[in-house]
C-alpha cells in the first residue's frame, strides 16, 4: 500500500498535525511540539 496523508494527534499535548502514513513501513512518531511518542493516527472521516 502506498503512503497516504493522514492526521496525527498527540495524546500528551493535544497537538494535531498532518503527516504521511505507510502501513508497510511504520516509522517512529514524535510530536513536533512536545516530543512525546503518544501520537495517534486519527481514523479517516468517511465521506457522507
Amino acid at each position, binding site marked *: 500500500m502506498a503512503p497516504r496523508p493522514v492526521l496525527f494527534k498527540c*495524546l500528551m499535548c*493535544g497537538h494535531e498535525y498532518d503527516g504521511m502514513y505507510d502501513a508497510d513501513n*511504520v516509522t517512529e512518531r514524535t510530536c513536533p511540539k512536545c516530543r*512525546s*511518542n*503518544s501520537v*495517534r493516527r486519527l*481514523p479517516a472521516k468517511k465521506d457522507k
Partner: protein
Amino acid sequence: MMDVGRHPNVELMSFSEVESVSGFVGNFHVTVRKKARYVDPSECTACGECEKVCPVAVPDEYQQGFSSRKAIYLPFPQAVPSSYVLDMENCLGNNPIACGKCADVCEKECINYDDQDELVNFEVGVIIAATGMDVYDPTEYDEYGYTRFDNVITSMEFERLICAGGPTGGHFIRPSDHESPKSIGFIQCVGSRSKDGRGNPYCSNICCMNTVKDTLLLCDHYPGVEAKVFYMDIRAFGKGFEDLYIRSKEEGVKYIRGIPGDVVEDSQTKNLVLNVENTTTGKIEKHELDLLVLSQGVIPRRDGAQIKQLLTLSSTSDGFVMESHPKLKPVDAPTKGVYIAGCVESPKDVKDSVTQASAAAARASILLNAGKTKIEAITSNVDIEKCNYCDVCSKVCPYNAILSADKKTNKPPTIIEAACAGCGACAAECPQDAISMRHFTDEQIMAQVDALLSVDPHKHLIVFACNWCSYAGGDMAGTSRLQYPTTCKLIRTMCSGRVDEKFVLQAFRLGAPMVLVSGCHFSDCHYINAVHWTQKRMDRLWNKLDRLGIRADRLQLEWISAAEGQKFAKVMRDMEEKLKQVTEEEIEYTMKKLEEEAKKEEEKKAKKAVKRAKVTQDQEVNA
C-alpha cells in the same frame, strides 16, 4: 584475496548472488546464483588475447569511467579468480550476426556463449554478512558543480587518477585539458554531517584521513603543488592519524576551516573559483583552483534492504545494519548465527573492518566448534487446540521463526525454537490466544496486573516496560537519583511487542486511571522490528477506546532507551499530571463498559467453541 582463493577450506564464489536463506542457527539453507561468466575460470589463463580482438568498447566502471574496457574483460588487475568475464549485455555475440572473435583466438577454448546462470544450494552453520557500502553521489550538491564542471571530481575519481594502475598510469591530470593541475582543493563532508536534508546526518568516518593521505600523495609526487582542504573539523582520532595530519600541514597543505558556499567555473581557463567563509578569521575568501576534489561520504549499500530481508537483519536510523548489542555483542546480528563485519555495520576504515572481521570469524568458529548452542528459554509455544490456522503469527515474527500454517492440509504453525528470540509479538497478535510465551504467559502478566490493582487501583499508573530499554531506563533514572512519582507500577515484558491488547484493557477494567506502554526506539529494537507491531496495536487500541467512549489519551505510548533515565522520569511525572485529570466517574464508566465488553467477548467465544465442537463432531461422524 589470493590467500582466500587458494585456501583449502574456503570456497570462493565470486560473481555470484545469494538468492535465498532459510533455516536457523546451525542449519541455514542457502541458495546462491552463480552468474554466467561465459568464460570457464578453471581454464582461463588470463592471457588477454580475447580482449585484444574484442571490437566493443564501453566505459570501465573500475576506472570510474575515465577509460574504456572491452566486452570481454578482467574486472580489475588483482581479481580472484584471475579469469576474464564476458559482458553479454554489450557483447556482439556470435548469433545472429557472428562476431565470435574472442572464441576464435582463445587457445584454451574456454569461451562458451551458451553459458547459463547456475543455482547452487548448500547448508551452513553460521553466516557472516560483510557486504560493504556504497559511496555518496554528490550531484545533489549542485552548488559544487559536480558533472557540470569538468574539473570537479570525487575522491574516488582522484584515487584512480593518481594510481599507477589507473587510466593515466599515475600521471595526475585534470580532465578538461589533461594538464597537471598546480592548485587543488578538497571539500570535506560532502554528503556527511548534513542537516539540510541533503546527504546524511552521520560522519562517514574515513573521509578526513583519506584526504590527508591524498594531500601527502600529491606533495610526494608533485612537489610545489598547492593543496587546500576546506573542512568543518578534521577527525584524526586513530593510531598515528594525528601524526599524518601534522605531516600534511608541515608539507604546506593549507587547511581552511569553512565549507564553500558555491563554485564558479571560468569558461576560458576552466579554473574554479570557490567562495568560502573562513570561520577562523571570520572573513569571506575567494580561492582559484585548477581542480576540485569532493570528499564524498559513504552510504549503506543500495541493495541493502534485500540483504537485510534475506538475513532478517535490523536497520539503524542511518540504514546500516544494527548489531545485537553495541558493547557486548558488537559483531552479532540479532538473528542467531548471523554475524556482521565491516561497513555493512557502519562506516569504518580498513583496520577497523579487519578487526571486526576477525572478531566475527572468531565468534563464528566458537559456535561451529562447540557444535551446539544454547537457545532462549523464553520462546513461544502454539496450542494447536486453540489455533484456527489464520497464520497471523508467521507474518508477525521478525525472525521468520514460525513456519506457516496451512488450513487445507490441517498443518498448524510450527515454531522453530532455535530461531525464536522471544519477543512475544506473535503471542500478542494471535487473535485466538493460541500462542503463549514461556515465562511471560498471559496468565502471569494478567496476574501482575491484577495484583498491582488489587488495592486503590485509581491511584496507580500501570506501566508496561520492555526489558532492554524502558525498564533499563527506569533503572538508569533510579541509579541517577532522579525523582519520579511512586504511583507508577512497572510490569516488565521482554519487548513492548508482547503487550497484548487484553493486558491494557484488563488494567482499565480493574480501575487503572492511566496506562503507559513503553519500549525501545525503533532504531534500538532488540527484536528487529517487533516495535512496529506495538505501534500498530496501539493505533487499534486507541480506536477501540474511542469507540467505547473512553478517552484515548488515558493510554500513552513512549519510546525510552536504556540511557534515557531523564526521559523516563519526565514521562512518569507527565503521566502523574495526566492521572490527576482522570475523574472518578470516568474510571467507573470505563470499568462498567469494559466489563460489559468482556462479557460479550466471553459469550462470543463460548458460541465459537460450541460451533467448533459441533464441526469436529460432524467430521468424526462422517469419518
